[in-house]
């Protein structure tokens, strides 16, 4: 290293140029007053940007984010992982629906056996039409077309057990 030292002499002379770069005249005259005024005004807290506050309070988070800034590959991998997680979430979110349908099946079977045993046939048909719990759908499937009166609805009378 010592052999190379003399070679840096002209570089050091060139670097001396930096010492001649000076701020505008009288710049330092009001510098300390500005600092003190900002301290007095409590400005030190309010102007701090989010990133500044993060760097002060949670430096590890900023370092973590800097990894992405320096290496876009990490950012892409992270985004890919998030997308994968989202897609997996969507897939799993749809599954419970089918599971709940399956779990409702024994209940609907119980209802159908109960109604077939106790209710009169037309009502039973209306209720059990398409095995659906949607009253609109079951009504439409049993109701006649526009303008016609359902004969079954007029003729039938029944009483539920216990009434």
């Amino acid at each position: 290293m010592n052999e190379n030292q003399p070679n840096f002499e002209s570089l050091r002379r060139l670097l001396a140029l930096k010492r001649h770069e000076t701020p505008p005249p009288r710049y330092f005259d009001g510098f300390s007053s500005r600092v003190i005024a900002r301290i007095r005004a409590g400005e030190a807290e309010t102007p701090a940007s989010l990133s500044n506050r993060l760097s002060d309070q949670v430096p590890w988070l900023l370092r973590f984010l800097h990894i992405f800034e320096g290496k876009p590959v990490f950012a892409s991998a992270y985004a890919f992982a998030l997308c994968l997680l989202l897609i997996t979430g969507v897939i799993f979110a749809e599954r419970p629906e089918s599971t709940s349908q399956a779990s409702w099946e024994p209940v609907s079977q119980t209802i159908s056996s109960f109604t077939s045993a106790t209710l009169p046939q037309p009502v039973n048909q209306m209720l059990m039409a398409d095995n659906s719990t949607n009253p609109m759908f079951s009504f439409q499937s049993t109701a006649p077309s526009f303008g016609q009166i359902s004969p079954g609805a007029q003729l039938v009378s029944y009483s539920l057990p216990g009434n």
Partner: protein
Amino acid sequence: MPADETTLVRRSRDGDLEAYNELVRCYQERIYATIYHMTANHEDANDLAQESFIKAFRALKSFRGGSSFYTWLYRIAVNKTINFLKQRKNRVQISLNDLDFNAEHDPDLVALISDRTPRREADLRELQEKLNAALLKLSEPHRLAVVLHDVQGLSHDEIAKVMNCNIGTVRSRLFYARQQLQGWLSDYLKPT
């Protein structure tokens, strides 16, 4: 730490802003210069220097006096500057200060200026831009080592305290940085 400075630090820690004003006036030029040479931007240096002094005032209660106030203050300014530089990484904006009148008469610089043109001022400006561009190409730790040693005139020991590393690391960073700069600025350097 000089006795006066110790008193000023103690008074500042107790909330005496007059005392802190004295401390700011004592170090403002050196702190500003260090930040300016790291950022090559006057406006950024102005903001960061002010914020460094404000942060130092708020942190004075944690200053135990283990190192000198000057080293401690430098460390705050340097950390703030390095954090800032990491954030602005890909959007470098150069806003250089003018060269003072003495630059033209500096014997070291006069020796470097080529005799090809009588427009000495233009040559200095060009040199200034090339030098700053080359410095900005260095990584922050390497640039800091060069700025603190070759521009600010700090000793290896002081730099090690400011950068929180050992003297060997300071020396190797300095050597590597100078090598890099020498390569990039070879057209502007006279062979020794």
